[in-house]
Every structure is written in C-alpha cells, then in structure tokens.
C-alpha cells in the first residue's frame, strides 16, 4: 500500500506512456516531467509568497494578508487568495521600459534568469525514482546552470541604464561569484564521501538507519559544518536576507531590477524563489538524506512528501532569518566569504578525508568534532579580535 502511494506519480506516468506509440515515449516522458516540475514548484512559489508574508507579519506583530480569498464571496481563507491576486496584478500592470534602456537585453534578462533556474530542477531527486534526468554529473550540471543566473543579473543591471541598477548588478556579481566557491566546496565534501556526482547516488548513500538517527550526512561533524556552510552560501546565492545586498532596498532601492515592472518584475521574483527552492532542495539532497524519512518507522509516508516537508521546513527557516537579521555591508560580506567561509570549507575537506579513512567509532567522532570546532573557534575569534566590536559602557552626567 505504501509503495503504491510512494510510486503513484511514477506509475501514473508509465500508465499514460503505455497508451502512446513507442517512438514518442521518451519525448512525452520528458515533457511530462517538465510539466510536473513547473506546476509543482510554481504552486510552491505561490504558497511560499503567502507563507512568507504571513510568517514575516507574525514575526512583526502584524496579521499579513487576510482579505483575499475566494472571489465574490466573503470567504477569506486566511488570505490564501493573495498569490492569485498578486499574479493578476503583475500581469495587468503597465510594463515600463526606460527610454534609455537597451530594450532587447532588458527584455531577455528575466527570461534568461528563469530558464537556468528551472533547468537545475532536472537533477533534483524529489522522490524515489522521481528525478527528471539521472545524470552521472548531476551535481556539476546543477552548479553549471546555477552559475548562469549571474549573467542575467548583470544583463538586467546593465541594460536598465540606471545607476542603482548598475550598483546592484556589481554587488550581485561580486557576491554570487564569491559565495559560489564555499557553496561548491561544501558540496565537494559530500562528493568525496559518496564518490559520485550523481544526485541519486548521493541520496542512496544516506538511505540506512543507525539506531535512532538516519545516516544523513548532516549528522556527522563534517556534514553538519558543510550543511551550515552550504546554507549560508545558499542564502547569499539566492540573495536572501542578510545577504540581500543586490536588492538592498534601503540603500540602492531595488538593485538590478529597479527598472522592471509588471510581469517582468514578477519573473525576477519567481526566479529568486525558484532558485531558493532549488538550492534548498540540493541542500536536502546532499545533507538531509534527500527524500528519505528521518526515522525508519516513518517510511510509510511517501518519499516525495518527505522531500517537500523538508523543503518547506528549510524555507520557513529562511523566512525566519529574513524577519530577524539586519543586512551586512559589502566589505563585511566579502570578508566573510573569503576569510571565513572559504578557509572553513577547505578545512572541512580535510575533515572529510580523515573521517573517510578512520574506522568508525568514538575516536573518529572526536577527531571529526575537533576538526570542525577548532577551526571555527580559531577563525571566528581571530577575525572578530581585529575588529574591536563590543557592547560598550556609557558614562552619565548628573
């Protein structure tokens, strides 16, 4: 029974394909996968915009959207109609292109942003046997298409002919290039452990259970450090607070998409969220056991459900971070990437190697633990020491 549920989408696809001529099956199979990915993640995007507005509002003592529900009735459904209303608004808004803009590049920038983001979903295993393309170099593909977003960000910033857009694009490029390195290095630790670039193999490597806990990589010292490094870089890659400098609303107004309105703006928004899901999905695949249940007795819940439960949990954490943390400054951001994230990620690789060659047992845990906490304390203390940041005491005059 649980297997039927688990494989319901896979069996559905095979059943559908069975009615089609053999020559068309590969193409239709691909198209079906694409359609499912787009529909599923676009729906998740709609729900997340609502969830984010609601979550931020609750963090900030507000209610958030609570009016839009089912049209022409008084049913408000906690404002769940808001995403639809926002979509209609974005579609019907006037599309303004600046007079001096490079119109062609200006038009293509949001499109060029969305396509690689969607492509990256191809290698994400969202359930057992549920991956669009099981590539041997899946991880490499993911990072390759992920890097293409930088191009479109610069296209948007440059073609708008706006100084804020240019500043935003400059910031975005510097930030994304810098944080891609710790992002990839922290993933390399998993590759070293699994010995494969295939996302499916990486998930398989985390399938066993060990006592109470599953064998997810996040439950090892190097894996935990790698996961934290990965998620920090993921925040920076998806331009989320506290790394939202490319938008920097209070400084450079809206950064590289300042001159976009209507649905082009919505596309940027969509791409940002889809990028966030994709990179969180990769984090789940690499460190959180992919679609595996956290406990052996919970395996009856379908694998795809586990993937989305984990994804929404990560997204909620990102929303929480956004609601609580102020933004860094450009130089601090760069310092953090090159002086802290990069050495930590490199040292983490050493940690993985040692973990890989030691026999399981307490000594391995102690060494692994020391190799994470030691560098963290040394680097953290060392970097903070030079800055003289501290709470101060004040004197009072009578």
């Amino acid at each position: 029974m649980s297997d039927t549920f688990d494989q319901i989408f896979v069996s559905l696809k095979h059943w559908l394909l069975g009615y089609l001529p053999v020559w068309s099956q590969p193409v239709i199979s691909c198209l079906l996968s694409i359609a499912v990915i787009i529909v599923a993640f676009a729906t998740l995007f709609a729900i997340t915009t609502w969830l984010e507005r609601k979550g931020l509002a609750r963090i900030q003592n507000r209610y958030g959207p609570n009016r839009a529900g089912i049209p022409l009735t008084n049913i408000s459904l906690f404002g769940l109609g808001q995403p639809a209303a926002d979509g209609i608004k974005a579609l019907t808004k006037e599309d303004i292109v600046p007079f001096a803009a490079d119109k062609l590049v200006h038009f293509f920038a949001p499109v060029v942003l969305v396509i690689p983001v969607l492509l990256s979903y191809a290698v994400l295993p969202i359930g057992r046997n549920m991956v669009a393309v099981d590539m041997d170099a899946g991880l490499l593909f993911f990072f390759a298409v992920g890097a293409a977003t930088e191009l479109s960000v610069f296209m948007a910033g440059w073609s708008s002919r706006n100084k804020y857009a240019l500043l935003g694009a400059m910031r975005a490029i510097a930030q994304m290039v810098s944080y891609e390195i710790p992002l990839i290095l922290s993933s390399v630790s998993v590759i070293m452990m699994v010995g494969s670039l295939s996302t499916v193999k990486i998930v398989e490597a985390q399938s066993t259970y060990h006592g109470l806990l599953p064998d997810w990589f996040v439950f090892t010292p190097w894996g935990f450090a790698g996961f934290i490094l990965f998620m920090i870089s993921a925040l920076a890659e998806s331009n989320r607070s506290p790394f939202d400098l490319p938008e920097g609303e209070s400084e450079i107004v809206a950064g590289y998409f300042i001159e976009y309105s209507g649905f082009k703006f919505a596309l940027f928004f969509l791409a940002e969220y889809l990028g966030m899901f994709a990179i969180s999905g990769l984090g789940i695949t690499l460190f959180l056991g992919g679609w595996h249940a956290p406990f052996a007795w919970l395996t009856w819940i379908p694998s795809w459900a586990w993937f989305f439960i984990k994804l929404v949990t990560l997204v909620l954490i990102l929303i929480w971070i956004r609601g609580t943390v102020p933004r860094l400054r450009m130089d601090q951001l760069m310092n953090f990437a090159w002086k802290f994230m990069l050495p930590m990620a490199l040292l983490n690789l050493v940690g993985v190697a040692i973990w890989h060659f030691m026999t399981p047992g307490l000594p391995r845990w102690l060494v692994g633990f020391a190799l994470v906490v030691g560098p963290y304390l040394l680097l953290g203390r060392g970097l903070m020491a030079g800055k003289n940041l501290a709470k101060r005491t004040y004197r009072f005059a009578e």
Partner: protein
Amino acid sequence: MSIVAEMPSKNFELLSKDGDGELLEIAMGPHHPSTHGVFRMDVVLDGERVVKLKPVFGYLHRNHEKIAEGTTYLGSMPYTDRLDYFCSLTNNWAYALAVEKLAGLQVPERAEYIRVITAELTRLQNHACLMGFLVQDMGASGTPLMYAFREREKILDLFESLTGARMMCNYMRFGGCRCDLPAGWLDGAKKVVAETPRFIDEFEALLAGNEILMARTQNVGAMSRELAINASITGPMLRAAGVNYDLRKVDRYGIYDRFQFKVPLGDHGDTYDRYMVRVLEMRETVKILEQALAGISDGPIIDPKAKLRGFRPKVGEAYGRIEAPKGELGFYLISDGGPNPYRYRVRPPSLINLTVLEDLCLGQLVADVVVILGSVDIVLGEVDR
C-alpha cells in the same frame, strides 16, 4: 547619455585618484526609501565609497516662518505641530515657551507637570521610532520598526485621549494647556510607562549585542567633540560625541529642576553611540515620567491672565528653547505690539544636525550613508519648514 560620470564637474573639486578614477554620481533622493521624506543627497561614489556628498533640501518648504508672521500668535500653534510631525507636543512647548517669555505669562504647576509628562512621552516614542527606523535602514525588513510602532501606538493612544489627535496635537496654550487631563488618563499613562522598560530591555537584548548591528554601526560615521561643538550640533547626537549639554539640565526650563535624572554620554561619537545614547535616554525619560506622574497635583491648567483672543504681547523679543527629542528646538520672536509676530524664526535641530552629514559620510560606503542619515534623526517637515 552616459551613466558613468565623466570626470567630475567643477563644483565637485575631486581628488586625483590612483586607480582609473571613474566616479559615479548618484542623486540619492528625493524619492528614495531611506531618506525619511523628500531629501536628496548628491553623492559621488568611487566604487561604493563616498568621495563627495552634498545634502540638498527644501523639497518640503512650506514657508512656515513667513506664514507665522502673517497670522496671530495663537494661529501658529497648530502650525508648529507640522514642523517635526513625530513630536508635535515638544514643538508646541517650545513655541509656547517663547511666547510666554515675550508676554511674561506664568504657567501653573499642574500645567507644567502635564507639559513634562507629554514632552517626555513624546521623547519616548520619538526615540523608539528612531531605533526602529535605524535598524530598518540596515535592512532588517521592518521587524524592529514594527516592535517600535507597537510601543508608539500606546503613547499615541494616550495623546489621542488627551488632545483629540494622535500626531497633530495642538495642545499647549500660552500660559498653560488647552484642556485638563481626562479621567483615568494618569492611570493609563502610568501603565504605559511601567511597560516601557520591558520594551527597552527586549529591544536591547535583541539588537544592542547583535554582531551585524555592531559591525554596521561601530566606528561608522564618527564625529569628534570639536566638530560637534563647532557645527552647533545639539541633542543626542551631541551627547553621543561626549559633550555634556542637555537643556533640561542647562536651562532647567519648566520644572525640570525637580526631577532626578542623568544624562548619558558617548565617547566615540559614532553611529552605535548615537543609537545607544538614545536607548539610555529612554531609560532616564522613564525615570522622569515616574516622578512626574507621582508628583502631579490638582490645580488650574492655564494662567488666568492669558488671553486667547486679542492677544498682543508687549514690544520686545524673546527666544524660547527646549530640549526636543532631536535637539535644541528654539523659537525666536520679535513683537511690535501687534497681533502677529514681527519676526518669527525657528531653530530646527534636524536641519542643523544635518549640516555635518558630509563630514560624517566621507570615506564610508553607500550603505553607511543611509545608516548615518538614520542616526542623525531628521524629520523633513522640520528641516525644510
């Protein structure tokens, strides 16, 4: 049309640079989310570093002083609300103080107490909002601001039940106040004041030790004592630079000599000090409020000699000043014996504190500019008048 400024125009006398020397000239404002109104900064950037900054104001100029010279003394009172629209009650008080000096009116004790209570409540909500806005400028997506506004609402509710208006209070009159406290108002005020320390503690616990906040504010936009004095900076900004100058202590206007409170002073004069001095000032304000709310007694609320209609102060001049939340707010009046002032001049703390903006911002990054501007604490209604 080039977006990168060619070599700077003549009025930006620019440094010969080591690098390729391409500079970007940006007009931050007048419609920019962080200029707290319609204010413009013409910034010249080298990368993101500020090499030149010119504040441009006047977008909200409403001819306040000239209008006040054409209308009666009392007629200007509601208009002073609109100067610093966050703190209408302190504006009222400064103006009333100037006119009282001019006309030689005495303020009854109860009215003095009410003035102190409303002014200190104003200070509380102004500083709370400033802290919220400042962290908002650092990009904290509105959460601190909403926390601050939650407190401000309680105080505005008090103002509403006392004066009928939440922001444009128009409450003080020459020689006293417009109306007496409604029944139960003092208890409500006591409750609000009693809740405030908890809010300040919460705010401090969440923000004062936050590493990002410290990294963004410490040693950013530092101002020396000398500069602060020479530029006639007043208010928390001056005290953050370490100068002990609080008009409540210096002038002891009203009945401030009756209250026990201290004046917090900073040592670095940077943005963090400007932030923390305001936090500490809020704690002292709570002390003043507790004493004032305990000490208030019954009595008349307005000088019986004060005339509302046909008010013509004798020939002369007067300068009344108070410690408004943003600094020294002064009104200078010359009377020629007529129903309206011959000369009416406002000394707006926001404007004068803003004049040193370039000195604070040079060499900082563009992200610091908005934070420094936020820590100056301006309201454009007062800057432009």
